[in-house]
């Protein structure tokens, strides 16, 4: 029987079948942050339990950190309190914390791969839905709730049902100006925000195989926006080259042995799937969302659709989205005025994302009245970008160059939209109120498209600026 990566990883980590019918699955790597872990530690204390394998849990602080200045104590007393608790919990339970003074702090889904903690064939869990990101390296990675954070801390296991598997093939070559973000937004637009419920997604096909690791991270990151709790790409030479030399990756001969095992965990050529979907990469356009969920999007050259043409179950949602966004059916998405431009988040705040945006911003100026900020995904990304002078390109163009954190993706720190502002955003969610203003509006797009919009002051096709 030719097995998939999902089959192999699941089998290697199965402790036993539970009376409920679920699998008790061993979790090889557990990542925590300040928002979804404090209650879990408190539950452990109340139950008198210890952390079973403290050396397999790593912590960082990302959601609530300010990005203008990260001097402690933070001005926001609640943020400071959460930070104090995380530090204290990590000390009490002997967990390694990548703190603000470590040089290794950043968004949890940026630093895991970057430090080489994330490796092929692993099971990974984190109390954050974008944990699917780590699947880009051929791991099986799940977002979990706080009760499950408690379960992993106490037992290094989760009770889970094995998902079905859908292979999503993207074939052909992407056009210039079309990025991984456009690919995943196209996938979600096609399969819908609930199309992946009950599934894991295996991303494959020549376009995915040709992608660099950071592009694969963007794709896997948004699996959850399509309803799939996990998404992965089979490990290959790109994966191994990415991991070589990273701080927590195996070194020397151990690395060669690791590659042999990693390779063995990839889906076998004859394996079958519960479903297969194919997209033609060459026909994908730069994508912009027009609504209030990540499936409500169009190509930048297209018009906002009419709810009358929506599938019946989506009609009310489309109408609600247009009312919230104050858009009209048939209106072109290009030309939509923006107030804020945000380049950041666990989806698109890695070095290659910043490079692609800087390529557009170089020698140009942010439009009058547009507030533009770049928030690197980690301290390491910031340092690498600064070494290349990318921050200067942004600053000369009129962007604010910030410190690492989740920032305006979810507005848990000072970075928020105001009132009805419209934000061109490289993040992952355009939900109502997501960016910190209850009535604020979000247009999701690639970092290069955000840069283009910031300069034009409105949504434009980035390909016009790349000529």
């Amino acid at each position, binding site marked *: 029987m030719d097995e998939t990566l999902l089959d192999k990883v699941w089998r290697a980590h199965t402790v036993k079948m539970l009376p409920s*019918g679920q699998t008790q699955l061993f979790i090889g790597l557990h990542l925590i942050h300040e928002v979804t872990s404090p209650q879990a530690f408190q539950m452990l204390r109340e139950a008198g339990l210890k952390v*079973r394998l403290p050396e397999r849990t790593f912590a960082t602080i990302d959601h609530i950190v300010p990005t203008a200045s990260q001097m402690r104590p933070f001005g926001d007393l609640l943020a400071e309190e959460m930070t104090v608790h995380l530090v204290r919990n990590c000390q009490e339970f002997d967990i390694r914390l990548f703190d603000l003074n470590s040089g290794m702090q950043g968004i949890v889904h940026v630093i895991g791969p970057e430090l080489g903690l994330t490796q092929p064939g692993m099971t990974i869990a984190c109390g954050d839905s974008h944990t699917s990101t780590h699947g880009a390296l051929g791991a099986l990675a799940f977002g979990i709730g706080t009760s499950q954070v408690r379960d992993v801390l*106490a*037992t290094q296991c989760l009770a889970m049902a094995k998902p079905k598997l859908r292979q999503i093939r993207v074939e052909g070559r992407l056009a210039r100006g079309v990025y991984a973000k456009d690919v995943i937004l196209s996938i979600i637009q096609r399969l819908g925000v609930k199309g992946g419920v009950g599934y894991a997604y295996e991303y494959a096909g020549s376009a995915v195989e040709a992608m660099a690791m950071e592009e694969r991270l963007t794709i896997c990151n948004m699996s959850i926006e399509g309803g799939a709790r996990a998404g992965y790409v089979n490990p290959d030479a790109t994966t191994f080259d990415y991991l070589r030399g990273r701080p927590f990756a195996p070194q020397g001969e151990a690395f060669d042995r690791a590659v042999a095992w990693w390779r063995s965990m990839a889906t076998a050529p004859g394996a079958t799937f519960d479903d297969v979907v194919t997209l033609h990469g060459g026909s994908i356009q730069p994508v912009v969302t027009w609504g209030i969920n990540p499936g409500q999007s169009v190509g930048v050259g297209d018009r906002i659709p009419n709810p009358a043409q929506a599938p019946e179950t989506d009609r*009310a949602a489309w109408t609600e989205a247009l009312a919230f966004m104050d858009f009209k059916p048939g209106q072109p998405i290009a030309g939509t005025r923006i107030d804020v431009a945000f380049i950041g988040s666990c989806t698109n705040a890695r070095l290659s994302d910043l490079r692609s945006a800087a390529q557009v911003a170089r020698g140009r100026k942010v439009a009058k009245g547009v507030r533009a900020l770049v928030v690197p995904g980690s301290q390491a990304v910031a340092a690498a970008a600064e070494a290349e002078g990318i921050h200067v390109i942004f600053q000369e163009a009129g962007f604010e160059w910030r410190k690492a954190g989740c920032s305006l993706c979810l507005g848990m720190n000072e970075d928020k939209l105001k009132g009805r502002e419209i934000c061109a955003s490289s993040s992952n969610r355009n939900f109502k109120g*997501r960016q910190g203003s209850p009535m604020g509006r979000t247009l999701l797009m690639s970092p290069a498209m955000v840069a283009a919009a910031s300069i034009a002051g409105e949504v434009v096709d980035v390909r016009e600026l790349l000529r």
Partner: protein
Amino acid sequence: MSGDSVRRQIVGRGIPLPGNDIDTDRIIPARFLKSVTFEGLEQHVFADDRVQAPDHPFNEDRYQGASILVVGLNFGCGSSREHAPEALRRWGIRGIVGGSFAEIFFGNATALGVPCLAVAPKDVEWLMGAVAHQPEREIVLDVEAERVRLGDRTIPARLPEAARKQLLTGTWNATAVLLEAGEEIARVAQGLPYLSGY
């Protein structure tokens, strides 16, 4: 497991919440997650939606004291924040019936002992109408029989077998069950190349 953790039937008045794809940012906006406990979350459930729509069901007097939430498709999509089912539970919700549920939300709600039963879209529509018409009537969520009853009407419902067993046996807090594996956990760990330097 103690008897009070068994969830055989949930009985209570309903509150209808129309709409599909209602995400967890709407159930509890991120700014209310700035706390190291779940205390007080009930005050902020649907905080922004309630301001934007004064006739939001959670604002209406006639639904106060309801314990069974009726929802559409893909309820609880988006963020994995357990604050969402916690906020609902602390507000008074003890069971949810709807068209379908996002996966992480479903697991989080089950882990709090809040059953989420799925029914056909036409039955969701009927339930919402019936509750709005007579909010004082009690709904019965029958976890054991996988049925929802309101008045003289009984609706077939679905619950994944694993969640059903956990709720019926009171083992929805998974930690105790997972701890039982003991040395089997160590055995699996020993077999993983990445935990032994490959």
